[in-house]
């Protein structure tokens, strides 16, 4: 994932393998991991001739922001998704919190 985030263009599995700088990883292993990341909607694949190119769906910062939104959204029904150290916020003040988060 770090290799894909560092790259400015979509990469092939081979280029990812080179980027990892480890000859011990088989290309098939890299492909398996890329396939798993694709299923988890973290990378997308485009076909260019015979080669498949992979690129990240969103930047690392965007994903961290998504996690933080999940974690800070004060909806009480989020309690079932995750339990936060500082409890939840009444529904009528959630909009105010969202404004604060920007």
């Amino acid at each position, binding site marked *: 994932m770090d290799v894909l985030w560092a790259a400015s263009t979509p990469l092939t599995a081979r280029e990812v393998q080179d980027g990892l700088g480890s000859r011990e990883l088989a290309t098939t292993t890299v492909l398996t991991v890329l396939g798993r990341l694709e299923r988890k909607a973290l990378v997308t694949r485009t076909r260019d001739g015979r080669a498949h190119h992979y690129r990240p769906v969103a930047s690392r910062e965007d994903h961290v922001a998504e996690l*933080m939104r999940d974690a800070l959204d004060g909806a009480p*029904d989020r309690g079932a998704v995750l339990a*936060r150290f500082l409890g939840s916020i009444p529904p009528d003040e959630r909009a105010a919190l969202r404004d604060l988060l920007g």
Partner: protein
Amino acid sequence: MELTALALLVLGVVLAEPASRALATARWPARDPVGALLVWQAIGLAGGLSLLGAGLVYAVAPLGDSPAPAFATLADAVVAGRLPPEVRTAHVLALVATVLLGMRLFVVLASVTIRTLKARRRHRDLLDVLATPWPDAPGTRVLDHPLPVAYCLPGRSSRLVVSAGVLEVLEPDEVRAVLAHEQAHLRERHDLVVLPFVAWGATAPFVRGMVCAQLAVAALIEMRADDVAAARAEPHELVGALRAVGGSAPAAALSSFTTALHARIGRISAPPEPLAAPLRLLVRAVAVALVAVPTAVLLLPG
């Protein structure tokens, strides 16, 4: 039987509204969070049983003197493709309304569960790619973000997460107190404790008592987790952590948030006297009785 149906209806309505409101504003739950959580579970279960039971009992009222055999008579007749002549339109309407309410409750619970599991899986996938292990406590991950937040992702494959902001504002001992709090949520499966109330709240958001219940249960699991954390770490570490994280959390600008935070800090620094043993026993007995009464009415011969 009509009287039984009426009694169940009254019990259901009393549990859903005045009883929920009274329990949500009572002071004793802070002195016995576990007992209060048991009573809440009993109210949710008994309220549902009573309301659904009232409709069913009314529908089969003309068919006998006690509910269970009358249900059997109606079921046999319906399977045979006919309706007993004693069953009038009002009874059929009650039956349909009850079945619809029951189905709605089931569908809401199922969809809340599916949505929750999906959101959790997505969150976990992202965490596993983005968060780095924290060497000081095995099983804990650090999310690189300046806002202080600590939380856990419940489920069979659970995760404990602290943000870089938390490590910034807290001493290691305070971080451990926070982690003890989150581990209590995970170990006691507080996500399952809140789930029925999320479902009730989503089924009947217009009933104020349901919303009160949801908020009260959410507050109680925090008290319970604080109690566990205060017993494992030093209470002052937990208070320090609450002050530091609470003061710099984005929600600190909300007055209700700071009020709730001060209430929690107050409860840890000067814990209220726990309920006396006989009272704790009484609370648990009430919880059992709440569920036992509608169950007995529905199942025992009258």
